[in-house]
């Protein structure tokens, strides 16, 4: 059933138009993209370029109005119903009436994991995001960075190979964000998941990704796809190297090109 076994997400001529009172808004147009298994793909672009919309189409939270898209070889709806991805939102979206443990248990309860299995998975994912010992706390007792880590743990708790992250660190300060980026890379190396990551920070995109998708607005489309030449092992200092700056420069050029015709 899957003719390209290594591709996790594959979109061709994908378009999405919202009908609004002021006429149609083209959120996505003619997007062609393949995400391979084990990739860390960042989507970067100014606001309104459709990067979040594209992520939501993969997650079946929005429906494409034209073109084709498959997720794990299935339609997005089938992929959602077979629980093939974990989604991390811009805000932690933890339920305040549940402890951190119980929040991580939420998808496991819904998906019918046994209570023994749930316990083991909660412990493992809390350890994965360095929150061991905080399981009994309520979300509002933790800092913003810890809350977002808990929400990543929640997305990792069940066996989805695809992790969709929509500006997960956008609301956090630079220092916490650096720290979480480093942890995220380690986590990606340990879990071998495929990650789609929306951001509007160039250093963040270059530091994290194996592939950077540069997008431009109105209509949302892909202007450049940059394969990173950085090694998979990346200390924070890599951001000072000429290679890193070279890629960052290309991303910036791509963003500028996307903007130029507008003005």
């Amino acid at each position, binding site marked *: 059933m899957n003719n390209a076994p290594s591709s996790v997400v594959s979109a061709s001529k994908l378009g999405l138009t919202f009908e609004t009172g002021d006429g149609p808004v083209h959120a996505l147009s003619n997007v062609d993209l393949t995400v391979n298994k084990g990739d860390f793909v960042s989507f970067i672009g100014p606001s309104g370029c459709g990067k979040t919309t594209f992520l939501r189409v993969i997650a079946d939270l929005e429906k494409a109005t034209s073109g084709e898209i498959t997720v794990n070889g299935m339609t997005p709806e089938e992929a959602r119903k077979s629980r093939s991805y974990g*989604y991390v*939102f*811009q805000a932690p979206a933890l*339920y305040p009436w549940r402890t951190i443990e119980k929040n991580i248990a939420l998808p496991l309860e819904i998906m019918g994991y046994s209570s023994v299995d749930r316990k083991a998975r909660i412990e493992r994912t809390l350890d994965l995001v360095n929150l061991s010992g905080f399981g009994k706390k309520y979300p509002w007792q933790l800092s913003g960075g810890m809350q977002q880590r808990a929400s990543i743990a929640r997305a990792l708790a069940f066996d989805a190979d695809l992790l969709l992250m929509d500006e997960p660190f956008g609301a956090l300060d630079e220092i916490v964000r650096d720290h979480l980026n480093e942890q995220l890379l380690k986590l990606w190396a340990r879990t071998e998941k495929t990650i789609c990551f929306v951001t509007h920070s160039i250093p963040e995109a270059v530091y994290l990704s194996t592939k950077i998708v540069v997008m431009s607005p109105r209509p949302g489309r892909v202007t450049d796809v940059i394969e990173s030449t950085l090694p998979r092992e990346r200390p924070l200092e890599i951001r000072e190297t000429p290679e890193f700056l070279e890629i960052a420069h290309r991303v910036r050029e791509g963003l500028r090109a996307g903007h130029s015709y507008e003005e």
Partner: protein
Amino acid sequence: MTLILRSWQGAAAVVLCLAALASLPLMAADAPSPFGTGTVVLVFLMIAGAAAISFTKLSQPLLATILFVAAHLAVWLLLAGIAGNEGKATLAFFLMLAASWLLAWRCVAVLSHLRPKSGAGDTFLRLLIPAIFGVWILILWEAATRGAGIPFIILPPPSAIGARLAGSVPILWADVQQTIFKAVLFGYVVGCASGFVVAILADRIAFLRRGLLPIGNMVSALPIIGVAPIMVMWFGFDWQSKAAVVIIMTFFPMLVNTVAGLAASGAMERDLMRSYASDYWQTLVKLRLPAAMPFIFNALKINSTLALIGAIVAEFFGTPIVGMGFRISTEIGRMNVDMVWAEIAVAALIGSVFYGVVALGERATTFWHPSNRGG
């Protein structure tokens, strides 16, 4: 000047004492058993003395204790002196009453600024301050009604109401059983539960949501006075007709609040559930109902008072010869206002307990809500 500002109540109490001294005696000349000289001197010394002490820089707990004892002992002597002299109290009597009230005010003001270190002390103060407040309402009421001889039928003194309450426990208990344990509790449980169930149905079925809710708003505006006699026609004189009134009154607040509460969960939280391929009932139980709890408890609290009003008023329109509303309407006709007040006191007590239990349930269930979680 700063001395006076330290305790303006004390300064006012001294002025009142002087004014009372100028207009002695405390009871009119024809009073059958006027105050003894010793008692009068004692009252004056206590009030003036405590007022003077309130200007000093004594430790606050000690000062509060002195004020507490002096104010209440003095007012107890004053109240005891009314016995046999009803309606004969003079201006001097009321000036002294006001002076002791000011001292009690000072006492509460001092207590309010105390910050006890132990939890038990804190709880004690939290109970003591409103208790002094409440007791003084009764003291002033008692002194005004008996001292000035206000007719019993207009306002009976609290002591008479208390005596009536203590003397009619079997009747009051039977009334409570009839009105509270049958009509109110049954109506409350059925009204709230059915409002809740219909809210979930309305959430699930669009035509109910769009058709029933506007009608619901109209029905909730129906005057209870109009509905109650019709319910008596339909369900008979006994408690069932009162329970029906309570059901009508409690149903719609619960319906409207639950519908609003079910819409209270955020878009991101709902997307999260969708990403888990969660079905309708899972999303309802794990997200939307917990998020709706503050709204549901709001309705439960509103309904706890509405249910009591509904059941008592409904009994005015026909009832067997027992029940709180029945008692109020018949005893007022027989001029037994003390019994009416006794029923009011019982209703107020039960209403407070009812509300308190619901509020405790709310604190336990919605501890996570920003309004409850504190610091």
